[in-house]
């Protein structure tokens, strides 16, 4: 096992910062390519007019998940050295709800707002300022919320271990759900398109 390279000391953290920058370029590049620099396209997901948020996110998750799993299987990557965050079930669920509400109201998430700023969207700048403000509020309230913040701590938990299923089986299930989801979404988009063009193509 020789990967992750940084964890095995192949380069120091200064180079790691350079790696961060380069990976960030790739990240931002693909986000913009997919149209994620546009708040209207992002919000359209939640009105069922454009499902690209679901398609891109789920495809990315499945790609990385499958790649990581197979690289680990052949003994290239030591999966135990890849960072796995602790699970705090309740705060993460509540935080997700709040973030989702903010997402559809503001039209961005932190990463996409950066891309939007890069392409000149002024509302993204306002959104980011709001983001700073929200984090500041959280920071100030943090000392009073520590009980909730650290509640339901399940440690390092992943889907296979929590549901006691074979890791590979979970991978298969996620892929099946993805394929089913994409098929449904494609069909749905076709139906919406037909409806909107008033049945011209019928």
């Amino acid at each position, binding site marked *: 096992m020789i990967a992750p390279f940084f964890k095995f000391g192949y380069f120091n953290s200064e180079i790691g910062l350079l790696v961060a920058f380069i990976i960030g*370029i790739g990240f931002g590049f693909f986000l913009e390519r997919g149209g994620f620099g546009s708040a*209207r396209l992002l919000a359209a997901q939640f009105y069922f007019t454009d499902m690209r948020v679901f398609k891109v996110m789920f495809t990315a998750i499945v790609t*990385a998940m499958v790649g990581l799993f197979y690289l680990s299987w052949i003994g290239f990557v030591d999966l135990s050295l*890849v960072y796995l*965050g602790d699970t705090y079930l309740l705060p993460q669920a509540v935080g997700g709800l709040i973030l989702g509400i903010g997402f559809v109201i503001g039209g961005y998430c932190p990463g996409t707002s950066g891309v939007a700023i890069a392409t*000149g969207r002024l509302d993204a700048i306002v959104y980011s300022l709001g*983001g700073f403000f929200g984090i500041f509020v959280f920071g100030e309230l943090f000392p009073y919320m520590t009980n909730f*913040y650290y509640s339901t701590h399940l440690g390092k938990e992943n889907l296979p271990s929590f549901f006691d299923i074979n890791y590979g089986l979970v991978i298969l299930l996620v892929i099946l759900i993805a394929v089913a989801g994409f098929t449904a979404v494609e069909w749905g988009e076709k139906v919406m398109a037909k409806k909107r063009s008033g049945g011209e193509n019928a």
Partner: protein
Amino acid sequence: MSIKEWFSHHHEDNVKEHALYPKHYWNSYLVGMGLGLVLLSAFVIMGRGLGASGALSTVVAVSVNEVAPSHAKGNAFYEGYLGDGTQSPLKDWLVFEVLGLIVGGFISGAIAGRNKIAIEKGPNITKKKRFIFAFIGGSLMGFGAKMARGCTSGQGLTGGAMLNLGSWAFLLSVFAGAYATAYFVRRQWI
């Protein structure tokens, strides 16, 4: 259908209705695979995934520290982002990654001719209202992201690929919260 057609905006046909949308976005699945490979390279090279909200938090912590150092150092949340003083807190992996993200987004937009000063909003709302909504949305996002220990890039993509239990719960909540609220702010987008 040839591969060339598949790569083009075939699936974005329903988006053509909105005349302001530029064309030539890549196919969503292709973009997704590209993002997935970027994420995978982060896993393989650094042993960590992507993120974005952490960089914002670092900026907030550093700012608070500039204005009120003793207050910042006494707060466990800010302290976590300020480090132990041996090096500048801005020498942070996520900060550099977000800087790269901005550059990458700019490059992609420049190539496609999509870079222009504009305000993203639906046709039925004023600019002022849009800014107010953007600020409110951003604040909720910032608060929620810190509560959940991440945002859609970090917890969503990274945690999702690692099959992290909390991350999948987070993803479901994000979609639930967004869909639940969409009706109430539809005036802004549609």
